[in-house]
């Protein structure tokens, strides 16, 4: 069990056992990378992981769709994480997340290196984008075809963030547990009093 405190909210991710395949056709599985909400507590630009999950879950639930959270331990490759989660999802739809914020919506019948939507520029992802990603994932789960979340681009993201992204990637790699299967997580997000 890991828990972390942030100014407004705490995120506690508790493992409840091996991840199982869902049976509800109206669910989205969110899959987080090895260091998410543990070794790391915020994205590359400081969006707290509690906020990332809160927004994604809210975006999904607003569409009347259920959500489960799993952690993939064996890889830090976003496509592999997302595709593994899609295969666990009752709807076949997943949202994969790296600690630095890079996000992908995947579907179980697509090739692993393909995806429904990819958000590669992690420094540009804020709370609103995460909520929209959750909403779109839920709409795919319902069999709808939502407009893709508009992608953002900033040519100065390279000088500011490229090296830090490399560093975060290397650290995330160190948290990989070879051969470990995905685990089911229970997320508790609580407001901090005062």
């Amino acid at each position, binding site marked *: 069990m*890991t828990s972390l405190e942030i100014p407004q909210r705490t995120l506690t991710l508790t493992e409840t056992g091996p991840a199982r395949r869902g049976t509800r056709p109206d669910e989205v599985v969110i899959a987080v990378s090895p260091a998410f909400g543990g070794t790391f507590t915020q994205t590359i630009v400081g969006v707290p992981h509690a906020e990332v999950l809160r927004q994604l879950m809210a975006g999904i639930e607003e569409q009347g769709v259920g959500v489960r959270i799993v952690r993939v331990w064996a890889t830090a490759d976003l496509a592999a994480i997302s595709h593994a989660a899609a295969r666990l999802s009752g709807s076949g739809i997943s949202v994969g997340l790296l600690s630095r914020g890079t996000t992908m919506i995947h579907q179980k019948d697509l090739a692993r290196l393909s995806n429904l939507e990819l958000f590669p520029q992690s420094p540009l992802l804020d709370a609103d984008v995460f909520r929209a990603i959750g909403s779109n994932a839920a709409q795919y789960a319902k069999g709808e075809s939502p407009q893709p979340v508009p992608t953002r681009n900033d*040519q*100065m993201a*390279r000088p*500011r963030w*490229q*090296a*830090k*992204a*490399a560093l975060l990637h290397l650290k995330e790699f160190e948290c990989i547990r070879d051969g470990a299967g995905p685990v089911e997580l229970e997320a508790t997000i609580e407001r901090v009093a005062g």
Partner: protein
Amino acid sequence: MTAVQPRNATGSRQSLRTEVLEERPVNLDGFVEEWPEKGLVAMESDFDPQPSVRVEDGRVVEMDGRERADFDFMDSFIADHALDVATTEASVALPSGQIARMLSDPGVSRSDVLAVTRGLTPAKVLDVVKLMNVVEIMQAMQKMRARRTPANQAHSTSARDNPLQVAVDAAEGALRGFAELETTLGVVRYAPLVAIALQVGGQVGRGGVLTQCALEEATELDLGMRGITAYAETISIYGTESVFVDGDDTPWSKTFLASAYASRGIKMRFTSGTGSEVQMGNAEGRSMLYLEIRCILMAKGAGVQGLQNGSISCIGVPGAVPGGIRAVAAENLVASMMDLECASGNDQSFSHSAMRRTARMLPQLLPGTDFVCSGYSAVPNQDNMFAGSNFDTDDYDDWNTIQRDLQVDGGLRHVREPEILAVRTKAARALQALFAQLDLPAITDAEVEAATYANSSNDYPFRDVLADLTGAQAVMDRGITGLDLVRGLEAAGFHDVAENLLSVLRQRVSGDLLQTSAILTADFVPLSAINDANDYAGPGTGYRLEGERWEQLKQLRHVTSATNPETEVR
């Protein structure tokens, strides 16, 4: 349990000066601490191998501490194709300090240096350049650059993939002096129209400019073979086997692709750069420069004439670690000391600080390289589909002033407004006429008018994108070639542009552009390491900015007349 304190919440008072410094653009750049074990280090790492080489029966059996049985495929390729087995043991045995001195000493000729460097192993090359500071690296580059005359290369792209914008900015870029022009796309299906536009615009601006379109490798080759483009550059190579394999490639597959270009007389170079392997998490614990030296030797072994390096799209990684920009200068030098053409980077957004952007390019501008920028943005950076360059159109006057201040030739010149407007209009008219000849989507007179005076893609009327994409597909389906472009331009009355393009196409028959560092002059004379070999041998020798070219570079937008100080020089 882990706990995170709120950031910047110490509550202590800051000085007013700190507040000013915090607001400086340089503090928007990212900097990180080194982590040598993971390869997040520029060029000084205890985890790089020590140089060694052993040859038995004309075959390298040990290189940089590894027996042949333990070679990965990069080692094998370099040992079998890059190293000169006849000289490698003697070269590696020379003290590194002696080789470094040969490099920076003008008294030692370029060919004498090459006689040694062609036998050096990757770890030995690193051992040599590690001894050199940036001034010594520049001194060596001045001598080791393959072509005597330095040059520059531009990006001409459009955020809307508007072919007309690409054509007119190519024309202006060519007129300002770029020897090569490169484009790429947002929507790749636009490629055929944009590549045609680049070629036509380039030949209007200055006959003999060479063009290329960066695309997925098969399409890029197809456009080259059709004669719609004149060279290729975006053939990426990597310094570790794991990253190479991730891209479904090997040194042999890249070499095969290189030979496909050569078979048609098309100029091409590989691309590599420090930081790519650690960025992808597979640096195998080696420094960025060591891995880049492996790439350079691989390129040499493949037999290509040149390399684009200088970190390129990973510049944010070496740029963030100590000594990173020194390592980038060193990697350019290593390409040149392996007798390869070097298109030396400065082609990607690098810093929020104008001072830092300038300092980053001085090690290439001051000694001169084959292409100081391998992509100066000849469009505003907002239109740069290579994700932004270190310099763009806003910097033209600064660049020209720096050339004039230091009396160095960075390949550009100031051009007066009427000349620029004339080539922009002509390029737009030529493309309009060619599209009509080829039954491609029409370019209106209103678009031509807008193109003449435009700065960015926002200044153009919207095009019918679906019609353009249908037209682009038709170019591919109908098998349109460079000769069709020549024919269409001729039929439309643009005889001189047709003649220019035909002269460029003829080069693939002679094969002169396959020579190292080849470019074409305005008279279609190839300038390469064969007929324009760098002969620098100290003060007063080699390429000098003088005569007519210096007179050109004395021109700026505003220079007060000495004859009549109440006016400016026209």
